[in-house]
Each structure stands twice: as C-alpha cells, then as structure tokens.
C-alpha cells in the first residue's frame, strides 16, 4: 500500500520523474526530490535501519539529518543518511550494520541482553583474565562501527573556494530570509545558506493545516529574488565557525569558505523527542518529521496516529496530520492545563480527543518491534515526572508524533564563543553574550512567534550594520508570551526501560542514573562515560534531554549543568570535501627539462625537485652513482646547483652584518675572495653553512644550504632590523641558476667558453670572479666542495639552460657528464666535507664537528657566540670523525645511523655518512665517536643492522689524495 499523498502545494518531489531503486532486495519507486527515507516511507517500508548497540528496528525520527539509525550503503558509498540523501534511479541499497538484512538482523538478540550491558559495561569486564582480552576485543571491534568502507572508492576531487561578503546568514527560514532582505535593502552583500534542498525553513512544513505559510514563503522568495546582492545557497550547510568569521559552507560539489564581516545565525531549533518506553519504534517520530513527510514529500506518516505533546506545536501537527488524511486518535498532552486558544479549539472542532496531564507510558510494539500497534496512555504528574500506571488506557494506532520541545541549533554560536543561558520562559538555552560580529535570530534566539522571528531577523541586521559601522535604527522584538515551546522535563520513567534518550548510542534513562551513581555526575564526565552525544548526530536530539535528566538527578537547574562543548562539524563532513584539491608547490630549476630529457631520476630536496642521478638502461642506481662520481675524479662532471640559497648582502655595513651573523671574519675579506659562512642559532647549534663571496666593497654574495634559503634570509632580515645597519638584502635564489663544473678537466672545459684566465694560478680556490661564459655574464665561485678543481658558475636563470648546454657540449670531448645529488653526496664525502643536518642534528655544536677553525671567538659578537663560551667550558661528549673500514672489507655494510658501540657495550655515537668510494677503494664515512677516540689511527666499532660489529679506523681528510693542500682547516 502506498503512503504517497496526492499533490501537496509546495511539495519538493517531481512527479514527472519517477525513480526506481531497491532496498534490501525489494523494489521501490520514488520521485526525483525524494530522500531515501521519504521514498521508502512512501512505499510503506518502515524498517529503515537498525540501531547501533541493540540492533533495534528504526524508522524515521527527524528527517532533518540526524536519523543516524537510517544509514544505508549502495555498495559504492557507505553510511549514507537516508533522511537527507536524495534517492537516485538504479540505487541498490541495504542498511549498514546488520547481519543478514535489516528485517532479520541476527544481531537483534543483543536487545534481549540489554541488562547484561549496563552503562560503561566495557570498562567493567573482558580484561580478566588478561589473556582473554584480545578475544573479546576482536568481538567488540567487529560489533562496533557502522558501514563497511569500500576500498575501491575513488578519490573525488572537490573544489574549495573562498567567498567574501558583508553578511553571512545561516538558515534560510523566515528569520534568515527576512534578515537577508533587510540587509540587501541596506546595500550589504549577503550570503544566505540553508542545509535543506529548498529555502523556507519551518514555512515549508509547519502549517497547522493552513495555506498561509506557503504564501508567506512565496512572498519572501520573490523578494529575495529581486536583490542581486543576495546569494542564496541551498543544500549547503555551515559546517563550523572559525576565528574571524570564517565559515565553511559544505555543498554537494565542494566547500565555499565564506569570510564574512558579520554573521547572523538563524539556524532554528531541533525538535527533541520526549522520553518514554519504546519511543524508538518505527512509526514513532518527531512531529516535525511527520510534517516534513507530508508537505515536502507528500508522504503520509501513518494512517492512524496519536500526537504526544507538551506545546502548541503538537496541535499544529495534529492539524497537519488531519489535513493529510491521517486519523488522529488522540492528542496526549503532558501538561496538566493543556493548550488553550485557537489551535486547541480547531483541534477540538475537528473531533480529536485531547488528554491533558497524560503521557504515553509505553508504545506497544508489533511483533519483533517492527512497528507500532498502539500506545498505553496514563495520567502524568508533570512536577514529579511520574506516570500513574494504574490509569493506563490503550489506544490503538500505527504511529506517534512527538512534540515536546526544542533545542537550539546553536553549534556555530558555541564555536564562536557565545555564552548561553537557560531561559525559563521558553525552557531553552538562548544566547546570553555573543561575540563581536556574531548575531543570533529566530528560534535559536528563543523567539517563536512567526512575526516575532521576522522582526528578530531585522533586529539582528540592524545590530550587524552597527557592528559594520553603519547607522541603523533599533528594532525591538516582543518578549515571548504564553506557554513555553519546550517542556522542562518530558521524561516518563518505566521499570522496563527502553525509554531512549540517545538514539545513536541506544542510551536509556537508567543509563544516566547509573552513570551518576558511579560518580559521573558532571555533564562532561557523563558524556564520556555514557557516550551520550558522541554518535554521528553529535547529540542533536539527545544532549538537551541528557542535561535535563542530569539536572533532575542532581536537583539543580539545567543552567547549573551547562552544556558540553560543541565542536565542528555541524554535520559530519566528508574527508574528500575537506581535503579537496590540494596544492603541492615545488620549485624546479632552469635546467629542469634538460634533466628530464637526460633521464634524470628526480628527488625532492625541501621544496625543490632535482636530479638524484641520471638513469642508464641496464645499470643499477648504485653503479650509476659510482660512475657519475668517478667521472668527476677522472675527468669532469657537472651538477645543477641552482637549489642553493643565494643572497646578496649590499650596503656600506655589509661586512659588519656578516661578522655579526656568521661565525667567521669578513671585514678583512678582499673583493674576489670567498670565505666559509657557518651559521649558529643563539644556543650555539649549527644550523647552516655556505660561502660568502665579496663581489664588491659593499656587496657580498652568500650561499646557503638548499633547504635553508628561506629561513636564513628571513633571519637575516630580522637581525638586520635589530642591528639597524645600513644593509640591503636581496634574495636571488630563484633569479640565479648555478652549475658546478668539477674535475681535473673542469678548467680546460670552461676555458673553451670564456676568454678570461681561469687557470688555477690566476683564479685559485676560494676566489670569485665575474666572467663571460658562453657569452653570458657569470659569477664564478671556486668552491672545493666536491672536487679540488671545481667552478660554481652562477648565471641569470633565463640564460642558464643555454650555458649549461654550451658547457655540456664543450666538455663532450672530455667525457663531461652530469651528476646528481647522490653522487654529490659521495663526492663531498671523499673530499671530507660534512653536510649540515646530515652529519649534524638539531643539537650539534661546532666543537662536536671539529669546526673550531671556523669560529672567530675574538670578534665582539656573533650569533651563538655567547652560548659557545658556555659550551666551551663543558667537555664534549662526542665528536665527528672521518673514518674508513678496513681494506678489502666485505662483510655486512653498515648503514647511516648504525651505532658506534664501545667495548663495554655502550652507545658512543653513530654513523652519519657511509659509502664505498671507488676512488679511495675503501668504505669511508663520518661518525660520532667517543672524544677519546678521535686521533687518526684510533679504532672503533660500528654495530650493523644484524648486530655484527664492524671495525673502523679514524683517518684524516680528504679521503682522496690531494695534489696540494691538506684538510680544509
């Protein structure tokens, strides 16, 4: 039997577009515009899902994105929320978290064992004997969780965009729409969002059987359409509030990050379920859910229902049910005095029996809890929250609409830092102190009457305008009059429980009482112990009742209990939306396409992508690296060194600046000379090294390690401000490309391309010159980092590739080949040069790496100097030494970071660099060792991965035979 109603004015479904789909193997037909739940309900399917803990059948509860017991999978996607996800043709749906289907779920036995599973039961058992815990844990893990993740699900790219506006309005109900219109008339640029597929809020469903709300909505929408400065986004929810009015709006196709100058939260309220036995059966739903079914989807909630209420809304719902052709067997009003006024009169006129001072004692289930067969109604003592079981009367029905009150949808307000207070006039938390630029209006602000809500929207706009520095008249809104829209304690005790407070987590009233008994009588502790509000609906229908129950247990006002913290997100938000299109910035050098064409295998160094080595068919990476290095030793090789940081220090105080910044001496440096530049932090830790070339009296050209260009430049800028020197810093890291031509034939090759004399004699090591290379003005630095004969050629980036190619061509005869960073690491090792952050770590001081020679301790000041004076008084605990393994060593090759272990088995240091050098014919490296073992010839032991001890001998650097000088000191 179909529950579909004839056309309802304003309905959201498109009857010309039927949609066929299956649920749990059965065929269903809905319409475009239906949600999964509404289409199923229209097809008279009531068992839409099973609850998380007890596996009880569940149906429609809110139809407002917190029916988390109705989660389905279409085999591709999982945990799809039936109450809000649109139904699509061809969907093959099943409920998640069942064993054997939603009707015959084998896990339903758990419901019968509920008594064995008291609140927090998992803390109380399963841990003894200890050996059994993994067994129980496995069972518990499998029982937990909802849907099964589809590992084949594609990574979906969602756009994330920014949007700026004067005013963001969250919620496009009558309050929000009115606010938008008023703001737009005042010239503000407005973005208004609503999570529902269509705007209108309560006007779309809460009608009390009258056509009036729909025409009011149509008027508002027509007015909105007239303003080009209003952007209305429906099907879009505000997921959270972040500092300085940043609100991400989640839409089906992505996220819009709205940065507003002011925000009005007109997000309304969530209807709250009264608590009574079996209030979770399929067919028992919130009054607003019944209204949504009727007016949005033209679906009859049930045929013969009762309304249990504690406010005027229940009477409106009764009228809507009647309008839809439902029989309403009774309106059961918790309040002793019931409702008076026109609504009550209208309900009475329509012949509906009203029972004041009554409650539903329990809902009578159909077999297997599959639905409702009736309700037991009895007298209710509102003050004491007691049901008089002696007065029970049974009413037959197949559905219940619940209308006991509301909780504010105040998550964004909380996140913005709003202090809320409990208002006894409306029995609801309302904003007390709002943060700057954030305003609340409508029901979330405790304003219920329709005209008042619209006024309240206008009032909020006026306040927002004043916040924005505009003039706006004060708008006053009438205080709430009459009965409270929410009942202070809509809870009916029952000895057999199953009176649910939290439908996500299957929590009953007694769970709260027992948690309090165990000492968890503070709302946050109670939340954690019972897990109330921690399910996917995040307490939207449970937190308020939990607060009311705890307040009652402790005998205090709800305000004293406070609320739990509302964290983002307002609704669970997909990872794909949040991750979106991600950006992975990286830098490439001017020679990048040359490298790729030459077969370079690229690696990342900081933000740079650069060649590790150049692949050769049929050769292992290891062999290639040895070959590349060998060519530097025997003839010549060239590496793209563009990734080095390059900074120009200009101005009359340039040398003075360097003297303070680096450890060395630069005042006496002659133009054309290069000096080592060692940088420490204030604690005396080595953070960078490079060279400083004096290219003019008032100009130095300084290099830094690849990864440090930006931070070193930044620190230079900062120190410069403090020191107030006449210095100008220019970061030319990207403007200059660099290539290091190295090897015995380097001079010969380079000479072919320059008319300047670059011979060893005319242009010795540690010198700088400007010369034309292949017709391009180049800065050439003699830096012996990878080889004795090496020319670091810096040229403007746009010309670099041409220069690189010219050199490669010029060197073809000599067998010049490019090398990558892997060979460079080996080459510098052979030269005895350590690498900062490879051979040092975050605590290394210069004494530990034998860099005393680079310190000019006699200078008046340099960064880190004062700390070094303190450190110098202490004994060094480890020192970096160059070492070799024994000749012909063929055992297990130690790895970098293997430990240096002394005879008594203590850790004395570690290997920081190790490699076989074909040039030296030995395995060489750097290691930290006991300071007692640093003399050349000292022996120490390295423990390899397998535990094997490998002998090593301390040696002098450079490892390779030098033609002229000794080590770098």
């Amino acid at each position: 039997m179909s529950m579909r109603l004839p056309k309802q004015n304003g309905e959201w479904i498109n009857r010309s577009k039927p949609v066929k789909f299956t649920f749990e193997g059965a065929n269903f037909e809905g319409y475009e515009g239906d949600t999964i739940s509404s289409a199923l309900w229209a097809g008279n399917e009531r068992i839409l899902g099973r609850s998380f803990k007890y596996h009880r059948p569940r149906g429609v509860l809110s139809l407002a994105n917190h029916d988390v017991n109705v989660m389905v999978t279409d085999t591709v996607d999982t945990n799809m929320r039936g109450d809000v996800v649109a139904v699509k043709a061809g969907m093959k749906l099943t409920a998640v978290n069942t064993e054997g289907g939603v009707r015959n779920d084998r896990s339903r036995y758990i419901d019968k064992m509920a008594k064995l599973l008291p609140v927090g039961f998992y803390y109380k058992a399963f841990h003894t004997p200890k050996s059994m815990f993994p067994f129980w844990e496995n069972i518990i893990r499998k029982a937990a969780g909802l849907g099964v993740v589809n590992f084949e699900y594609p990574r979906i790219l969602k756009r994330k965009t920014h949007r700026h506006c004067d005013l963001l309005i969250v919620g496009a109900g009558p309050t929000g729409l009115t606010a938008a219109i008023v703001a737009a008339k005042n010239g503000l640029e407005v973005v208004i969002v609503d999570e529902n597929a269509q705007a209108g809020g309560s006007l779309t469903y809460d009608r009390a059987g009258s056509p009036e709300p729909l025409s009011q909505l149509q008027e508002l929408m027509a007015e909105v359409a007239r303003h080009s400065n209003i952007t209305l986004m429906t099907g879009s929810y505000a997921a959270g509030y972040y500092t300085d009015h940043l609100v991400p709006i989640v839409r089906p196709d992505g996220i819009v990050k709205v940065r507003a100058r002011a925000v009005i939260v007109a997000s309304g309220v969530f209807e709250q379920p009264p608590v009574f036995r079996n209030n979770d059966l399929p067919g028992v739903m919130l009054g607003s859910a019944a209204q949504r079914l009727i007016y949005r989807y033209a679906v009859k909630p049930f045929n013969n229902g009762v309304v249990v209420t504690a406010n005027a809304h229940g009477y409106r719902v009764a009228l809507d049910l009647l309008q839809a052709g439902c029989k309403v067997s009774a309106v059961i009003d918790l309040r002793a005095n019931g409702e008076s006024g026109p609504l009550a009169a209208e309900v009475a006129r329509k012949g509906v029996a009203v029972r004041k001072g009554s409650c539903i004692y329990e809902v009578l289930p159909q077999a297997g809890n599959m639905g409702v067969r009736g309700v037991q109604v009895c007298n209710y003592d509102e003050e004491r929250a007691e049901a008089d079981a002696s007065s029970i009367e049974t009413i037959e029905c197949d559905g219940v609409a619940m209308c006991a009150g509301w909780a504010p949808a105040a998550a964004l307000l909380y996140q913005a830092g709003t202090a809320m207070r409990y208002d006894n006039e409306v029995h609801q938390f309302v904003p007390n102190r709002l943060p700057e630029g954030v305003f609340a209006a409508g029901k979330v602000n405790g304003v219920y009457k329709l005209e008042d809500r619209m006024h309240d929207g206008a009032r909020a706009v006026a306040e927002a305008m004043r916040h924005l520095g505009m003039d706006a008249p004060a708008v006053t809104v009438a205080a709430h009059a009459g009965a409270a829209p929410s009942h202070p304690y809509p809870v009916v005790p029952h000895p057999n429980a199953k009176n649910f407070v939290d439908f996500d987590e299957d929590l009953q009233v007694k769970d709260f009482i027992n948690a309090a008994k165990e000492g968890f009588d503070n709302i946050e502790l109670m939340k954690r112990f019972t897990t109330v509000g921690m399910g996917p609906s995040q307490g939207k229908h449970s937190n308020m009742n939990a607060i009311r129950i705890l307040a009652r247990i402790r005998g205090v006002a709800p305000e004293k209990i406070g609320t739990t913290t509302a964290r983002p997100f307002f609704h669970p938000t997909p990872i794909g939306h949040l991750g979106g299109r991600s950006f992975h910035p990286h830098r490439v050098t001017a020679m990048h396409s040359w490298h790729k064409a030459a077969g370079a295998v690229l690696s990342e160094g900081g933000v740079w992508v650069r060649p590790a080595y150049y692949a050769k068919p049929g050769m292992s990476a290891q062999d290639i690296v040895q070959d590349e290095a060998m060519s530097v030793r025997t003839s010549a090789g060239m590496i793209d060194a563009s990734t080095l940081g390059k900074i120009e220090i200009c101005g009359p105080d340039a040398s003075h600046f360097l003297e303070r910044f680096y450890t060395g001496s630069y005042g006496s440096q002659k133009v054309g000379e290069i000096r080592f530049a060692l940088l420490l932090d204030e604690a005396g830790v080595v953070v960078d090294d490079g060279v400083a070339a004096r290219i003019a009296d008032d100009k130095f050209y300084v290099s830094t390690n690849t990864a440090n260009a930006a931070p070193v430049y930044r620190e230079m800028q900062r120190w410069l401000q403090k020191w107030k020197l006449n210095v100008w810093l220019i970061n030319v890291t990207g403007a200059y490309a660099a290539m290091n031509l190295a090897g015995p034939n380097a001079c010969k090759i380079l000479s072919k391309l320059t008319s300047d004399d670059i011979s060893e004699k005319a242009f010795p090591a540690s010198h700088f010159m400007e010369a034309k290379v292949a017709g391009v003005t180049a800065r050439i630095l003699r830096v012996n980092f990878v080889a004795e004969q090496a020319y670091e050629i810096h040229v403007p980036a746009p010309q670099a590739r041409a220069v690189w190619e010219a050199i490669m061509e010029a060197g073809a005869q000599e067998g010049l080949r490019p090398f990558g960073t892997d060979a460079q690491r080996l080459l510098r090792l052979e030269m005895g040069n350590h690498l900062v952050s490879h051979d040092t770590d975050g605590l290394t001081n210069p004494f530990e790496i034998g860099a005393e020679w680079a310190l000019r301790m006699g200078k008046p000041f340099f960064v880190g100097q004062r700390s070094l004076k303190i450190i110098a008084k202490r004994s060094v605990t480890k020192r970096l030494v160059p070492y070799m393994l024994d000749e012909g060593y063929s055992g297990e090759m130690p790895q970098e970071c293997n430990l240096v272990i002394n005879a008594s088995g203590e850790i004395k240091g570690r290997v920081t660099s190790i490699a076989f050098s074909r040039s030296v014919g030995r395995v060489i490296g750097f290691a930290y060792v006991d300071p007692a073992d640093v003399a050349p010839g000292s022996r120490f032991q390295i423990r390899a991965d397998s535990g094997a001890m490998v002998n090593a001998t301390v040696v002098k650097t450079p490892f390779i035979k030098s033609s002229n000088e000794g080590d770098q000191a």
Partner: protein
Amino acid sequence: MTTAPQQTPVASAQQRLSPKMTVAHGMEIPLEFSSAEIEHKRKVNLGVCDVSCFPRFGVKGRNVVQWLQENKVDIPEPNSWVQQGESLVLRLGNGEFLVEDQFEGKLCAALDEAVMPEAYGVYKIRRNDAALMLSGSHVQELFSEICAIDLRDGALLPGKLVMTQMAGISATVLRQKFNGEDVFRIWCDGTYGSYLWDTLLEIAEESGGGAVGLSCYYKEML
C-alpha cells in the same frame, strides 16, 4: 659563444603542450598553443598567457625614490602601480620597485644603463619572474580557489597591487586595462613558474579556459 635566446621560467611546463614559439625581447616564448579560434574561446572563459619575456628592472635601497625620480620614473604609493608610457612601475611594499616594460616600453633598458652612484645606496635586484596574464569570465572563480583574499573589483582597486599567496606560493597580483578589457597580471618567482602554470591550467581547463599564446593579446605587435 651562445646566441641562444633566453628561456621563460615556465618552459618546462609548457613543453608538453608543444606551443608554437617566438622570440620576444630576447626570450623564447609561446606564441600560440592552439588555433586562434580555440585560443579566443579559452580567453573568453579563462586565458592564461605567459608574458615572462617583458623586460624587468628591480631596485631597492636607501635613496631609491630619489634615484628613480632623477631617472624620470613616476613614483606610485606603496603597494600601488602606475603606468608610465608603455611601462608599469610597481612599488612592492614601501621600498622596493619593479619596473616592467610592456611591448614597446624602454624604461628598463634606460634604468639598466643609468648610473647608480654609490652614495645613493641603491641596489639593482636581479629578477626571474614567471609573469602571467589572465583574463576571462572565470578568473574570479579561479582566484577564489587558489587565493584566500578577495581579488574582486571592489577589493583589488585600480592602481593597487597585492602581494599574497596563490596556490601556496608568493605572488604579486594587479588588475590592468588592456585593449579595453580587464586583465590580471601575476608575478611569481620563476622557479615556481612551472608549478603555478600547471596549477592554473588544471583549474582553467575545468571551466573551458586554458593556455593562450602571446599572439592572443599582442597580435599587432608580433
């Protein structure tokens, strides 16, 4: 001796598109990526054009304003720009300037040759900008995805420039009138050029835009 033209910083990213190249201001630069018709369509939606070939001159220092004035350069307010003849003069923050000659501009060459007396304490800044030109109906959509700040007309005012982050890297942006239409100019460090180019194209292509060559904007000049 090489006579090879200079290379645009975006070259490695453009390679896969096999553009028809030309040499402008000594730099090899894409002239056309596709037919004029297709490029025009792209440009209407969202055209991305590499104009790195324009000559540029950067300078900073103690008396930079005085020096520029003496060399007959109009001085804009901080974070603003002025068009001087066929050249743009950008003032990046307070004390740094970037001059860019458009097709016919000669200012950079003149400044390059101008004397920089030591006493002035002004220093030339070697630059390697990836310089792009964007226009079309979807530009703001693109900006909204790669930039957190408002670059719409009401926020990025004529004559103003903005140094901000785009797709995670530092960039300078301004809006200029060009042949009667609004175009946006973006400058970033050349070593990020290929990355930015690829990122912009990926997004532009989703809205019917794409790479356009120099001829799309500068037909008459070429």
